């Protein structure tokens, strides 16, 4: 989707390049976080994507098209842009602010009105209440929401966000981050997200690009970044208690499907078949699901032995220790501790079983870090 090829930027009157020979490939629908200390070139890199900064050397491609051949105004109208200071227009109402790009694109008035309403609802601001207010009447968090709504107004496939939640208090920030992740889950935009906060990077990013002095130090998933920092700089950036951070920051859906050994059976599986399976189970039990993979419960080795016959659907017991796909590994750990069990089943909104997290797996993660 977005590809930076050998991109270098040297600002006028400066000897050292702000960005040095950078190569970056951002896939469609991915959140790519550019992270690093101030002055590392992350914002410059972002601004080269919508040509607010023109690269000195190298090429930026969007959907395979060299952006230097596209009219910058045209280019920017199709890329959402959010900055830390938000930059809402103080003389316009919230609705007018959100309508900026659709108006530039000459949408009909009625369509703009509907879109503004839809977006304000999406970011949790009642259009009836806030639509006609001026930015000065809103709190910092509300203004950030308007900023995000404004950037998404014309439904651009790409969003550029420069420390979008940097200017609000930590509680509001966490809330905005979570809301944003929820929105992104529906929208599937390609997002370039700039931050200096590694925790935010790990939380928000599908991919993280660590930058230092204009160069790309490591480009990997948050998990890789935490488990295998490329060098001392990255390790230091990530911090000492990496293992705890991983538990706090990694969502369970990111690690599902990896190494656990718990059999899952449909409810019509004969019990004698379960006897073989349960022997190989890490938790001494098998999980039982219905025909549509919805979690019913679990059948322990004891249940299976005592039953002697029938199908799995007759003998399972309900399983209270489940968590949703959006939870973090630390949530998973606390559920395990609460129930005194070494595992937790992960289910989605429809109660379909999507995986299992075991204590062994978590220990494995922590041990990896210690090594």
């Amino acid at each position: 989707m977005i590809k930076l090829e050998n991109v270098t930027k040297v600002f006028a009157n400066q000897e050292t390049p702000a960005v040095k020979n950078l190569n970056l490939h951002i896939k469609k629908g991915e959140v790519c976080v550019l992270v690093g200390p101030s002055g590392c070139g992350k914002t410059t890199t972002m601004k080269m994507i919508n040509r607010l900064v023109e690269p000195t050397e190298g090429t930026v491609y969007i959907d395979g098209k060299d952006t230097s051949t596209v009219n910058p105004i045209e280019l920017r109208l199709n890329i959402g842009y959010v900055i830390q200071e938000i930059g809402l227009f103080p003389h316009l109402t919230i609705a007018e602010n959100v309508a900026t790009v659709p108006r530039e694109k000459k949408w009909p008035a009625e369509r703009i009105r509907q879109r503004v309403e839809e977006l304000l609802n999406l970011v949790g601001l009642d259009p009836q209440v806030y639509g006609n207010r001026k930015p000065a009447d809103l709190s910092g968090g509300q203004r950030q929401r308007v900023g995000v709504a404004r950037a998404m107004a014309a439904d651009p496939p790409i969003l550029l966000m420069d420390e979008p939640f940097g200017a609000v208090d930590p509680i509001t920030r966490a809330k905005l981050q979570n809301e944003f992740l929820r929105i992104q889950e529906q929208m599937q935009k390609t997002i370039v997200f700039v931050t200096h906060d590694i925790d935010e990077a790990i939380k928000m990013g599908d991919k993280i690009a660590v930058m230092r002095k204009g160069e790309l130090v490591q480009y990997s998933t948050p998990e890789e970044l935490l488990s295998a920092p490329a060098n001392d700089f990255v390790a230091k950036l990530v911090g000492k208690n990496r293992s705890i951070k991983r538990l706090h920051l990694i969502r369970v859906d990111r690690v599902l499907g990896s190494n656990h050994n718990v059999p899952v059976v449909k409810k019509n599986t004969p019990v004698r078949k379960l006897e073989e399976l349960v022997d190989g189970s890490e938790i001494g039990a098998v999980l039982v699901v219905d025909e549509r993979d919805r979690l019913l419960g679990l059948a322990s080795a004891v249940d299976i032995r005592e039953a002697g016959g029938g199908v799995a659907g007759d003998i399972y017991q309900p399983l209270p220790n489940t968590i949703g796909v959006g939870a973090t590994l630390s949530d998973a750990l606390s559920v395990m501790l609460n129930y005194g069990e070494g595992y937790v089943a992960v289910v989605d909104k429809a109660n379909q079983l999507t995986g299992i997290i075991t204590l062994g797996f978590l220990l494995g993660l922590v041990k990896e870090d210690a090594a």
Partner: protein
Amino acid sequence: MDFWSFVNSRWDKIFALTIEHGVLILTAMAAAIVVGVVVGVLITYYNPAAHAVLYICQILMTVPSLAMLGLLIPLLGIGFWTGVVGLILYSLLPIVRNTYTGIREIDPAILEAARGMGMNERTILLKIKLPLALPVIMAGIRTATVMVVGIGAIASYVGAGGLGEFIFRGISRYNKDMILTGAICVSVLAIAADLILKLVEKKASFR
């Protein structure tokens, strides 16, 4: 009450001169606003020129008004338009300077957001910069107008007409009532302009 009998007997003349004065001011200000705002906007795009232009405007304002009008006579002769040009030159500084400052002092984040979202420079100027700078520009226009009402009285020396005629004729004839009438009318005009423009300025503010 000599003064009141003077006013009563010359009512039509007072009215005519006040109108004349008003027309002089309005003509000069209309032109000054157009020129001043355009120049003020242009120099925001080129900083080195800004300093030079503002310096020239400052010099124009420093030249004593009588001298300025005198300097214009060889070029334009005597009459209404000489007065108008003099007043325009005088009122440029507050308008140009306030336009320039008003635009320069807009939060850069607002302009970056506008640019980043794909607004072109023309739209940014018309829909963002000028509306946001408007209160400051209006303040400059008010300063200039009040000043020009006063200097407009001097412009009758070069044949531009207006309430200055009462003052100067009164001085030459040693007619105190005439001087007083002219002086009071000019003052009232200046105060009225100030009050009206203050209201407009308040309306222009977006907060």
